[in-house]
């Protein structure tokens, strides 16, 4: 008859009923004068109370499954157990290999990323002092996504004394050679601005919005599908942090959405788990992800894909947003409240249209809001 048993409950209920009935029946007898009868009354009430409280305790214990036995309840059970490692390497318990127990998340991946860089990285050098663009293969341990991208290291990267801020450029032109948001173009503009002293050294990585098959172009986590948001918010920062000396706080991370990447940039910037403190996108409405798919899986999941909905109903993060390019984002801008801020800029005429955008981003990264 344990402290969770139905039998105990039945016994207590029967006792309570019997005591109550007996008390009501014997009431006149116990009503006589004398210390004995007063004590009998107290004993009777006390016995009833004990059985009622017992029932309360057993029912609470049954609901929450607190105590399985009397020794458990009384604390006389002192036998402890030992920690056992569950081995998966040739049946060996993991504790038998102390060195392999130390699993720093992503350490293995970062090494892999470095080797991949060495293997697949036809470094494009544009002369000394111009910085360099490296082709890299990112493989995210959390999302499982593998994607090719580009990393721009500023001139004198090795000599910069502090961790570099990071600009993540997301554009469907990522793989092109001449597009406005292509790696060579962004790199050339950044180098020029840094040389002119209008931009602080920053690491720039260029990626496409669709980082996996079926992932769509919204950089969203698709339930049951590719986890593009997880890639951008967890895998990418970790991979870069392992391979390069970069800033860790959101105030040091910007996302620059180019052609086809504006929704991604604003989506990642307004995500509660987003690592970005600065975001740039072409003006637009951003009420739905590009393409038809979105993150699918039900109206509520789709509702939060509407960035205007996010601005209305979620707290706005401390992110500086810049709309860069022709046109306006009137509705988005009107919904922005502190600590989020919004600004707009035109692209420059001439060979380097992104120059004012990079200047602004660099300034925003230097003075965190």
């Amino acid at each position, binding site marked *: 008859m344990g402290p969770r048993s139905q039998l105990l409950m039945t016994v207590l209920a029967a006792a309570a009923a019997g005591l109550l009935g007996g008390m009501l029946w014997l009431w006149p007898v116990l009503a006589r004068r004398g210390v004995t009868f007063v004590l009998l009354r*107290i004993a009777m009430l006390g016995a009833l109370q004990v059985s009622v409280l017992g029932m309360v305790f057993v029912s609470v214990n049954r609901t929450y499954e607190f105590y*399985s036995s009397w020794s*458990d309840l009384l604390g006389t059970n*002192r036998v402890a157990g030992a*920690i056992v490692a*569950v081995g998966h390497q040739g049946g060996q318990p993991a504790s038998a290999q102390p060195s392999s127990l130390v699993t720093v998340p992503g350490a293995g991946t970062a090494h892999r990323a470095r080797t991949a860089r060495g293997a697949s990285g036809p470094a494009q050098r544009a002369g000394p002092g111009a910085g360099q663009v490296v082709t890299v293969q990112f493989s995210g341990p959390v999302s499982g996504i593998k994607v090719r991208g580009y990393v721009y290291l500023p001139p004198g990267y090795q000599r910069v004394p502090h961790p570099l801020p990071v600009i993540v450029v997301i554009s469907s032109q990522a793989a092109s050679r001449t597009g406005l948001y292509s790696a060579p173009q962004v790199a050339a503009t950044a180098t020029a601005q840094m040389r002119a002293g209008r931009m602080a050294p920053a690491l720039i990585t260029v990626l496409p919005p669709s980082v996996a098959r079926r992932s769509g172009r919204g950089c969203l986590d698709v339930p049951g599908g590719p986890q593009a948001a997880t890639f951008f918010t967890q895998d990418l920062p970790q991979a870069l942090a392992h391979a390069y000396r970069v800033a860790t706080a959101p105030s040091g991370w910007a996302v620059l959405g180019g052609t086809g990447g504006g929704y991604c940039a604003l989506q990642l910037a307004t995500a509660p*788990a987003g690592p970005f403190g600065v975001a740039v996108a072409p003006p637009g409405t951003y009420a739905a992800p590009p393409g038809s798919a979105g993150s699918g899986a039900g109206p*509520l999941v789709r509702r939060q894909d509407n960035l205007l*909905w996010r601005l209305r109903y979620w*707290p706005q993060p401390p992110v500086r947003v810049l709309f860069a390019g022709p046109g306006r984002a009137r509705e988005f801008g009107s919904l922005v409240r502190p600590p989020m801020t919004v600004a707009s800029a035109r692209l420059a005429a001439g060979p380097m249209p992104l120059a004012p955008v990079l200047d602004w981003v660099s300034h925003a990264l230097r003075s965190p809001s």
Partner: protein
Amino acid sequence: MGLTSGVFGWLMVAVAAGSLAAVVWAWPRVARRRLPYLAARLVMVAVSQLLVTAAFLVWLNGYFSFYDSWSQLLGTSQPAQAVSARHAAAGPAKQLVVDGSRPGPLPDAGRPAPLAAPPGGLPRPGPPSSPAVSGRLMQIAITGQRTGLSSGPGYVYLPPQYFQPAYRHTRFPVVLALTGYPGVAGGIVTRLELPSVAASLLAARQIRPTVFVMLSVSPLFPYDTECTDIPAGPQVESFFAQDVTRAVEHAFRVTASPAGWGVVGYSTGGFCATKLAMMYPTRFSAAVSMAGYYQAYGGRFPRDLWGGSVAYRHENSPAWRLRHLPAPPVSVLVTSSRTGERSLPGTLAFLHEIRPPMRGYSLIIPQGGHNFRTWNRELAPSLEWLSRHLS
């Protein structure tokens, strides 16, 4: 008058005792053998029994650290925030506030100070109250910068070394401890006794100096969200993984590296600990799940936690993630009991699905129910394990 305040508890006891005395005193006045008198007896007895039961329930609530306030118990606190996640004040709120009004071993003042240096410990260089000897327990509250959610009252235990000159420049590892549901963070201090167990282990040099952050598993109490980013709703998982970690890194001298962050929880907190580590290996590298479960079941919330998406529900189940997604590079210790714990089969099933780079460890004790006494027994080995897996 607070639900858990001593005044209220004693008032309840006094009222209950008074009602019993009144019944004994008024006994002869309703002793006739007629129906109205019989009814009067029944009412008298029932009222006194109910009052005593109410006093007992108030005591049980305090003992198990379920509910901290009337609004929590009655469900009147912030339901609007829970359903629509609308942010009330958009001002630049402080991320982490140390509430100095209730310092020290809290919230149950009836117990001896749990943070005194253990007997036979190290020589004491300062007065017994010096934080450099016994560490410091502080009450805190964390407001999420990006999710807008609030932790409610929580606690931070800073180890003695935090205040010692030799460690002036050390950034300490952090263990985030989560309650079960329903549960208030004070339960981790008074019932699980985490700060005092940690202080003893530290003094015996069985764990390395670590900062402990203790929070309720449900920032939207009385709702239980199973630490889920609810579609088009409150983002509770992001609150713990991003807002809490950043706020703690900002407020205390702790490491920002995932290698130095662990998470421990019991019951629902165990589920959350496992889930957080598996979904955010870039934030946590080790988790301890005491009597946790491994399948998302839905908690307690006005609507579906997964926005009606079965796929999203799966992604919130640690057991499903193990079978269908890349294994994350984290270490997980699961605890359960051979008898007395219904979660045992699910725990063992989860354990056997673990594959590299994830690492699984188990602590299965012969007997122990779903209660603080069991978890208290498992705590010291769990903290030692965590200390070995954090750097």
